[in-house]
């Protein structure tokens, strides 16, 4: 499978008054052509910082201390501001979290959608507006023709996110980064936006990085999942592997705190404790203090990635051959049993490629 984006050993620190925040600590991942990669993790785990570094839109106090981001043979971390400007909104574009604030309140939406075309192409203004109208129609703004001159405040939150999506796809980007595009929307609208993104991905053949802290959303859209915790990716694999055969206790916790229809107890589980302070990240596995399965070594040494399958890796000492066998929480065990059964029945093509199941 062809990689369109390859992030290696990314290390990003922020200078603050209190000291250096070690926000991204050696993150590596890649994005295959045409797939959707979900990055999940609690607030503050470094999801936004990671994708902002791809866009070259890090805050002023950030510095990238190590790593490379390969996009079509070019290291984006070494690209000049001008090169990045020509890539942004053209080859790689981004959808932001809050549709209520991502649009310029004083510019008609038609013009906002046409803007990337005018920046990157030699298209005439008239043609760009016509194309903007087409794309607005495509993302589901009804009667787009008569709404081109309307302003953001004349649209609902869901419609505004559709407009933001229109802006992001108007140039047929090869990579689309969506940073929690549904978090600010209510549940029914969330589902519509997810459906829209899936539909668009097929139409414009783009690769998507989809950030969320809601695993429920992931099942519907992702092919692969990377789980982040405290500035590191701690587990990644196909969506089926992460949902049915998770290995890292943090992933267990995330899955357990996901509301499902068949949970017998009506109280929602939450992982106890809080993420570590990234001014002084712990020496070992950052999740250890919140991990009921933590061993001594978890506090002392960072676990390496252990291979589960060709596509599934997890950084937990539990996978070390010398580690004692532990029983995962009952709900997770149930998932794993389901998984083995599905594989046995041939319903899941195991480790090759976990296609997202519709519905959910």
């Amino acid at each position, binding site marked *: 499978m062809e990689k369109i984006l390859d992030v290696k050993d990314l290390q990003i620190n922020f200078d603050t008054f209190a000291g250096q925040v070690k926000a991204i600590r050696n993150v590596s991942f890649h994005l295959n052509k045409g797939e959707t990669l979900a990055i999940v993790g609690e607030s503050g785990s470094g999801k936004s910082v990671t994708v902002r570094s791809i*866009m070259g*839109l890090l805050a002023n106090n950030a510095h990238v201390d190590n790593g490379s981001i390969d996009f079509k043979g070019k290291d984006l971390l070494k690209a000049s501001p001008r090169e990045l*400007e020509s890539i*942004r909104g053209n080859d790689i574009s981004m959808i932001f979290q809050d549709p209520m*604030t991502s649009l310029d*309140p*004083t510019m008609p939406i038609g013009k906002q959608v046409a803007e*990337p075309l005018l920046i990157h192409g030699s298209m005439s203004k008239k043609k760009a507006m016509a194309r903007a109208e087409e794309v607005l129609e495509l993302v589901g703004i009804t009667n787009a023709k008569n709404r081109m001159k309307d302003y953001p405040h004349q649209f609902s939150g869901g419609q505004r996110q559709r407009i933001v999506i229109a802006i992001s796809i108007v140039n047929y980007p090869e990579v689309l980064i969506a940073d929690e595009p549904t978090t600010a929307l209510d549940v029914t609208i969330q589902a519509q936006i997810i459906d829209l993104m899936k539909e668009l991905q097929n139409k414009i053949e783009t690769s998507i990085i989809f950030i969320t802290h809601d695993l429920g959303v992931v099942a519907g859209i992702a092919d692969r999942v990377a789980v982040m915790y405290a500035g590191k990716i701690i587990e990644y694999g196909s969506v089926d592997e992460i949902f049915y055969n998770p290995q890292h206790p943090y992933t267990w916790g995330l899955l357990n705190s996901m509301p499902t229809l068949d949970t017998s107890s009506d109280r929602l589980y939450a992982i106890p404790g809080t993420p570590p302070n990234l001014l002084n990240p712990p020496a070992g596995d950052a999740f250890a203090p919140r991990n009921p399965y933590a061993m001594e070594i978890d506090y002392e040494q960072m676990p390496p990635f252990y291979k589960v399958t060709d596509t599934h890796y997890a950084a937990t000492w539990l996978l070390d051959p010398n580690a004692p066998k532990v029983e995962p929480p009952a709900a997770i065990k149930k998932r794993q049993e389901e998984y083995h059964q599905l594989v046995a029945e041939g319903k899941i093509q195991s480790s090759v490629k976990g296609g997202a199941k519709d519905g959910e």
Partner: protein
Amino acid sequence: MGKYILKRIGYMILTLFIIATATFFLMKLMPGSPYANQAKMSAEQIKIMNQQYGLDKPVFQQYLIYLVGLLHGDFGTSFQFNNQPVSYLISSRIGPSMQIGVQAIILGTVLGILLGAIAAIRKNSWVDTVATFFAILGRSIPNFVFAVLLQFFLAFKLKIFPIALWDGFSSSILPTIALAMAPLATTARFMRTEMVDVLNSDYIELARAKGNTPWQTVAKHALRNSLIPVITIIGPMAVDLMVGSMVVENIFSIPGIGDQFVKSITTNDYPTIMGLTLLYSFMLIVVILVVDILYGFIDPRIRLSGNEGSN
């Protein structure tokens, strides 16, 4: 929009009526009489003068006479200044005042917007420090001090500008600069705060994500959005300017209405004071109306609803 403007003009007339009434009665409460400082006049003469100007009539009747006059564009006759009609006093003196006033507000706001914008874009750099320094200077030093300093150095010492002489544009430069300092400082400070906010907003990040260069982002998105709140302070700045012009006109010997106002107050020249008060109120109300209309044009969220925006 048309209906909205009509409504606003209605309110304007009402406001002017209330101001006319209030000034009239306040004036009556003020100690002293227009002829009290002319010791040469006998009691008999004063009585004749009072009769001539209707000052012997009951206050309420005087008020009605005044209002009826106003409706006919008659502001009365000055007690001083050679018994000229107040309307003539005003019309012959408003030109120079308007000239330096308008020049000052344009110079002040345009430079202030530029300075504030640059300070925000280059936040925490030396440009920002210099701009902040000037803003503090402009706010804290009264404009008559600037006026005196400018006159002393540029007109008296270096002789670049005419001194205390009203003679067309070149003589309007120094008073314009002196008057522009306060609006410049206010606008710069306000603009900087707004622009810093705007530059941190999500839609600016989206504009960058579209591939705009930093300067394109400012020109296409940040400037207009930062200007919206800045427009609201033009009204209060205009007041400052009108007040400031009284002293500055005096220092530069400009034959304007500010100068006239000061003289009228010191001589209890009721009709002139009232005429000028109404004029100042009128100008202020017009400025506020213009600002509101301008606001509607720049901010689409207000344009449609025709009244205060909700967010």
